[in-house]
């Protein structure tokens, strides 16, 4: 008798009752409507509206689903809701960050801004630009890359092609550890050397600290890429009697060059935004200094910090514009790097 009743209630005995597909949307719309009504009535802020609607949504979903579909399904739905809410909440600050930087950055960002220094402009005045900072950044990051990229790639080659014993283990371990060295500690290390040799701040000192930060990143990404190179290629080359070093230079590296380039570019993007070591070692400069080996220089992230510290609206505008330039630089590097990675990916059938 009861069987018949159930069969009558549910169209299929093999599936439990399910909420229709549109039900999450309906519940969401309902809870937002209630929250807006309550919020507007009680004079709450928009953030509170959002919180109330989120809570209402979760409670209503659980209640309705538990009633129709059972507790297990209700739990599933509430987790789905939570995951969506977490995602949407996390989007807010990240979108706000990008949006603010773009909107406030374009205010003073023009050719004049990119081609002038702060030499004749006080922080409290409008005008001025970031030419000196761009020069400094490019030189410091370029020199850091010249140091770190060869060392990083060679270390990765050692680890993948030669390394077996305890030395290789130690290098692997310390590369991992080095990845976690805070940028300010790398800066302090070079600073301690400068104190010992009684040197004044200059651009190349910053480059050395940046190189320390860059090396482990290059090693790790290059290592991954070299491991992707199929062993058959190495074997074929060695079987033809090609020496190992030529095998590496002519077979292994060309196969993985796309990935290695990508890794190096991502590493550049990472160190280009480092402020702390530059603050300690390069010091900052209002004027254009083209020589990274003598005298303080400016760099983009440091410029942002110093303009923020100046603390007036003109300086804030310049800080946002410089931030936008920096983000644009980093993003373009990232996009180009990923483009290269896709274009030159080793064909391993992965």
């Amino acid at each position, binding site marked *: 008798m009861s069987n018949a009743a159930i069969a009558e209630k549910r169209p299929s005995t093999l599936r439990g009752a399910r909420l229709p597909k549109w039900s999450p949307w309906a519940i969401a719309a309902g809870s937002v409507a209630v929250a807006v009504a309550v919020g507007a009535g009680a004079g709450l802020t928009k953030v509170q509206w959002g919180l109330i609607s989120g809570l209402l949504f979760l409670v209503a979903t659980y209640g309705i689903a538990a009633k129709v579909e059972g507790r297990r399904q209700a739990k599933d739905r509430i987790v789905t809701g939570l995951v969506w809410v977490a995602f949407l909440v996390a989007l807010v600050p*990240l979108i706000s960050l990008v949006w603010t930087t773009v909107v406030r950055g374009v205010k003073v960002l023009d050719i004049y801004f990119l081609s002038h220094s702060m030499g004749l402009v006080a922080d409290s005045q409008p005008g001025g630009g970031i030419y000196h900072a761009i020069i400094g950044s490019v030189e410091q990051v370029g020199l850091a890359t010249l140091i770190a990229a060869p060392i990083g790639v060679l270390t990765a080659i050692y680890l993948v092609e030669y*390394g077996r014993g305890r030395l290789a283990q130690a290098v692997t371990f310390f590369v991992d550890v080095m990845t976690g060295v805070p940028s300010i500690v790398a800066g302090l290390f070079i600073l*301690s050397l400068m104190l010992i040799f009684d040197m004044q701040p200059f651009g190349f000192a910053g480059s050395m600290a940046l190189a320390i930060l860059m090396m482990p990143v290059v090693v790790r990404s290059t290592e991954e890429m070299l491991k992707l190179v199929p062993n058959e290629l190495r074997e074929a080359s060695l079987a033809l009697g090609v020496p190992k070093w030529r095998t590496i230079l002519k077979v292994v590296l060309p196969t993985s060059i796309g990935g290695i380039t990508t890794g190096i570019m991502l590493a550049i993007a990472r160190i280009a935004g480092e402020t702390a070591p530059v603050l300690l070692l390069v010091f900052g400069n209002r004027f254009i200094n083209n020589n990274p080996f003598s005298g303080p220089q400016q760099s983009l992230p440091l410029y942002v910090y110093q303009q*923020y510290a100046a603390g007036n609206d003109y300086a804030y505008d310049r800080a946002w514009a410089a931030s936008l330039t920096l*983000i644009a630089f980093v993003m373009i590097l990232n996009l180009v790097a990923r483009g290269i990675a896709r274009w030159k990916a080793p064909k391993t059938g992965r």
Partner: protein
Amino acid sequence: MDTSTQITDASPPTPEPSTAEQKRNARGATRPGDRIFLGLSRGSGILLLVIMAAIAVFLTYRASLALSKNHGNFLTTFEWNTNITPPSFGIAVLAYGTVVSSIIAMVIAVPVAVAIALFLTHYAPRRLAGPIAYVVDLLAAVPSIVYGLWGALILVPHMNGLFGWLNDFFGWTGVFSWDQGAPRSLLTVGILLAIMILPIITNVSREVFRQAPQMIEEAALALGATRWEVIRMAVIPFGRSGVISASMLGLGRALGETMAVATVLSPDFLIHGSLLNPGGGTFAQNIASKFSEATEFGRDALIASGLVLFVITLLVNGAARMIIARRKEYSGANA
């Protein structure tokens, strides 16, 4: 046997060479080109070790110069006066601030990051998941100074509402009481750090969840498990160590973050009972803000505090590595 013979005996990742001729080639000892190349690549590996050792040695040396003249207790003194004689400075406040702000960041960021990672691997519509993962990747590359600028000029004014609410409802605990000062406090720093480390933790966790064995998930689904039950029983147990290592990586960043803290926090040298009132400091922030006025002795003192930070991050990263030792591929060091 010693290390060097082990290294020269190392064969390429090919089948064992059979003849003596091949063996000699594989050792890289016969041809000058091979010898030079092996020397170069091993040399750069050794250089990396030397740099790490040099960091420890030189920081310790300069720190010892400062510590020998310190009249306060380095661990318990609540002040940082390096320009007076006798100088007196201690890291108690900095250690407290660093730990507290990082804990706040982890408490907020880890659950949200895991949720987003699950969202991207198991919930989001396929067409949405790819681009979002891409954007999260890009966000991980946004320089910290930009987060700092945004935090100081946008986030701080927006914290007033939250702080007022916390004070109204939880002010009685003392931890969340607020004297209406500017919300440039450790809690704001923690929230900003959480936002900063979110993309990194999300990225690494997503990689781990994506590699959860499909067969087990499908088996669970076939047995009638809901999606949440699949995740709880098949995905999370598989990804736990990966998530822990991802969190440790995030923690490492949060501990050493300099500029975002320096721009947002208004520091002093007291430990406040409330997380909402401005004050306190972190190791990295203290170095950045005190550096410009520091004398040579002051710089040595800052190096001493940097050494402590260095040791802490080494321990955290070492622990992360131990946890993932069994699953090397998820180390995420290249994220």
